[in-house]
């Protein structure tokens, strides 16, 4: 079949070496002519069909970063010259994850496959390595939990590694989920209990992956587990140890709005349901056993071992699932909102804990009250059940998101949870005024638009315009903004400001990416192999991404992606083809395979 290869680029920033690929493709069998049409060429179908006719071409390969862009004109030309329209093949670099001129060989392979008329995904199948059937899941938020359960329920061994003292992640902190307003804990805790009791899941809390060796299908992983200093098996979570503990620390689980002791359980439904000792603050541990130790005397079961030491565990797994989640951008960096300066400016996560029935105020939404701290000998602002409910609340969207200074990307969930906050406020405080300052309302999911409409109906003031300024006038907080649709500059006295802070990758993402050799994108999230066609795999064989660590996404998407990852893991167990890295495939491998399929 006489083939012509045409190169047309769309992106002028792409650094793909077209000349090198063109030279390579000219040597492919059956390729008669290679044309580099350059950047966004202005092609006329008539000239093109003349070219097809003079070269007697039967097959046309359009190669470039987005060749589909030029397909219509080639189709027209092919029709004019009387050729077979099915023989227009696209060699799309962008679709197969080629950016910034990396992996020239893969680009060549894509063109070769198109020239042979073989789909790239058929020819380029990494594989060959036998697969260990155990799986490591890093991160036990909703993504990690879902993936672990799916794999374990299929009867395969799962090691679930979690850095904190309990599984559950951020979702355990939430009160309600949007748009259904289901109780988050009611969905999550049964799954957490399942994980805790599952025979096939080996749960390791307070643990961290410190080294990974080996190849796809057979990874040797070293895990460092911090001592819990409380025996999980014998602890019955009676809580006798808590009261005597003299140390007070900001609670991580309560997003810092309440205090916990050095010996604590993150929340009552934690899995494993046992206390743990925070060695960074425990007076006994810090003084090497010279001081304190009151909890030891109080424990009725003798299950506290303050001298327990950290341990290292070595495991061998075939697949690794990354589910490391996200973190909030530090809102105090964005100084115009006064976070950290004014007491009643909260981040979204802090409000989430405030409104949660298991939070420090028992779910009552109140403003902070000034209390005298005896130890520090100064007043400080704290949440307490006797605080007054706010009468006016401003919710500011896009704090640090969609901004050239902080995160260029949209964090995707903020619009919806902000609307949810408006609902919760209206539900709990009947006469409250809620002002939502938004730039664009991104209600993209199933039932989301209806939810947004419902919030508007409830009487929330939804203001199109971003507030850039929170200030204090005396003891009143003032939020200023522009109400664009009403064409007015507005200024509101408010008692509370909630910032819909943007999301950033979890702190360990960088380290893991280096350890595993998984690519990150420019924003710091893990890169998937192919955004459209393969959103769960990574460039490295046997390593998958699930949930927020790939990109911001809501809970339904996270759960769906986690289940999809489980399918990928189980496929590698049963397909019998083994696994390998896409990045380790060589040009000759792919070309050889394409040739075989071609001759068949």
């Amino acid at each position: 079949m006489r083939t012509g290869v045409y190169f047309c680029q769309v992106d002028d920033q792409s650094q793909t070496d077209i000349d090198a690929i063109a030279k390579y493709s000219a040597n492919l069998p059956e390729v008669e002519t290679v044309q580099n049409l350059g950047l966004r060429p202005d092609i006329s179908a008539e000239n093109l069909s003349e070219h097809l006719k003079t070269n007697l071409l039967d097959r046309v390969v359009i190669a470039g970063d987005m060749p589909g862009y030029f397909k219509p004109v080639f189709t027209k030309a092919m029709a004019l010259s009387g050729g077979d329209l099915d023989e227009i093949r696209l060699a799309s670099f962008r679709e197969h994850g080629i950016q910034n001129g990396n992996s020239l060989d893969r680009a060549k392979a894509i063109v070769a496959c198109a020239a042979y008329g073989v789909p790239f995904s058929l020819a380029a199948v990494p594989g060959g390595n036998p697969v260990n059937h155990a799986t490591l899941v890093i991160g036990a938020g909703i993504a990690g939990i879902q993936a672990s359960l799916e794999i374990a329920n299929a009867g395969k061994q799962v090691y679930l590694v979690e850095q904190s003292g309990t599984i559950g992640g951020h979702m355990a902190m939430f009160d309600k989920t949007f748009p259904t307003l289901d109780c988050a804990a009611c969905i999550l805790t049964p799954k957490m209990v399942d994980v805790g009791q599952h025979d096939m899941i080996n749960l390791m809390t307070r643990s961290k992956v410190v080294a990974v060796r080996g190849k796809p299908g057979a990874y040797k992983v070293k895990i460092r587990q911090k001592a819990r200093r409380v025996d999980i098996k014998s602890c019955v979570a009676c809580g006798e140890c808590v009261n005597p503990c003299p140390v007070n620390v900001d609670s991580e689980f309560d997003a810092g709005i309440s205090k916990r002791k050095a010996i604590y359980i993150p929340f009552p439904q934690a899995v494993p349901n046992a206390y743990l000792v925070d060695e960074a603050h425990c007076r006994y541990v810090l003084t090497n056993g010279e001081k304190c130790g009151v909890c030891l005397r109080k424990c009725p079961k003798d299950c506290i071992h303050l001298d327990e030491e950290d341990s290292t565990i070595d495991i061998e797994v075939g697949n690794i699932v990354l589910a490391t989640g996200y973190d909030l951008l530090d809102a105090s960096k964005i100084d115009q909102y006064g976070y950290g300066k004014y007491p009643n400016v909260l981040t979204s996560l802090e409000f989430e804990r405030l409104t949660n029935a298991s939070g420090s105020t028992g779910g009552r939404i109140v403003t902070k009250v000034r209390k005298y701290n005896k130890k520090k000998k100064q007043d400080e602002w704290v949440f307490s059940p006797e605080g007054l409910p706010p009468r006016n609340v401003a919710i500011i969207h896009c704090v640090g998101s969609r901004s050239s200074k902080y995160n260029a990307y949209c964090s995707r969930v903020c619009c919806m949870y902000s609307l949810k906050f408006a609902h919760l406020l209206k539900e709990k405080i009947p006469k409250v005024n809620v002002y939502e300052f938004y730039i664009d309302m991104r209600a993209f999911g199933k039932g989301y638009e209806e939810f947004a409409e419902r919030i508007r109906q409830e009487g929330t003031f939804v203001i199109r315009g971003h507030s850039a300024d929170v200030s204090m006038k005396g003891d009143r907080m003032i939020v200023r903004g522009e109400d664009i649709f009403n064409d007015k500059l507005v200024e509101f006295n408010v008692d509370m400001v909630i910032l819909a802070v943007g999301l950033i990758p979890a702190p360990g993402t960088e380290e893991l990416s280096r350890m595993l050799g998984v690519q990150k994108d420019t924003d710091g999230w893990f890169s998937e192999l192919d955004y459209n066609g393969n959103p769960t795999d990574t460039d490295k064989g046997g390593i998958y991404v699930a949930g927020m660590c790939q990109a911001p996404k809501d809970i339904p998407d996270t759960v769906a992606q986690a289940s999809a990852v489980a399918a990928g893991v189980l496929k590698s167990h049963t397909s019998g083809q083994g696994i390998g890295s896409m990045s380790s495939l060589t040009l000759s491998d792919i070309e050889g395979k394409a040739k075989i399929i071609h001759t068949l």
Partner: protein
Amino acid sequence: MAIRVNPSFIDVLDRYGAEDVQLCYQCGDCSTVCPHADEVHKFPRKSMRQMQMGLEARIETTLEPWLCYYCGQCSEQCPRDADPGETMMSLRRWLISRYDVTGLAKHFFKSKTKELLWVGLIALLTGAFLVLYGVSNGNFGVYDGEGAFLPSDFIHSFDLTVGGIMGAFLLLHALRMWYFTMIKGVEYPVPWWLYFKEILEFPIHFFTQKRYAECDDKHREKVHMPWLVHLGLALGYVTMLILVMVFIVPLQSGPEIKWSVHIFGYLASIGLLVGTVYFIRNRFKKAYIQYKKSHSTDWIFVILLFFIVISGILQHIFHRTGLTEWANATYVIHLMVVVPWLLRMPFTKWAHIVYRPLAMYFAAIKKSAYERQQGRIDSLSVTIR
């Protein structure tokens, strides 16, 4: 009323310095932080939107660009780096070219070669004329009195001619500005007596530039330095203009110093010298956000002014120290810069010395009219109820 849209308006403004207008996604942060935006004049967001939509005819009738003193807080705050402050600056440039009837301003803003050629041509013509006049009527060695190279009464009439041309153009442009903004650009009736009621606004803003002082970002410094220097520069310039146009004869006589006249000249020179040096330095160092981007006309503006001040001072010193030939030579050079500078004024940035207080004056009138109208609507709705 239908408005004609110019879809390529953004591309037009690109030449005037507004490069990033299309980046704006209308969050309104800029209008929120702007110390000058109020109920009637909401900017810069609204101006950005009008530009994106190509509402050339609407922008032509707005006062907003003149109400902005470019403190740069909006550009600092902008999450899209769309640079609203610089955009307002570019709109001012564009408006100057719109008020201009001759079309010269457009050429100046779009091409620095054209502007430099024009300045050079006028300078050469002036030089040639002055030298020819001096050689035919006087002696190069005499500065003042009988047989002077450039006698002061001749300079006086020469100044008045140049100033008259400049004034005529400036008046014409101000009239056009009034027509655009106060006739075409108001949606509610403006009673004539409001022009008298608010008349004080013009001299107040002209002599204090108090809105520039309000631009101060309170976190940074006690006195807003750009305001102080800008005020000094503007007042120095006005003083010098009056001295040259009216008191040129006593100013030029000498060699003894006439303190009653010269003291004003010295003060004005200090204001001008400090101002030009300060602005040139800031534009080099990009000290404040408003100096980050400099249009070619900004550079020509400060550098020409600097030359005028230096040559003026040198000429004064040479005259007082008895170096008559040197004094005459620097005087010719001085006038060679002054004349194109003055003739250029109605077509370039310096015209804002008139447009800006005029805009404050018009804005006050518009605001009064708006409030009057709102009051009427409110009372109307009360009676209906």
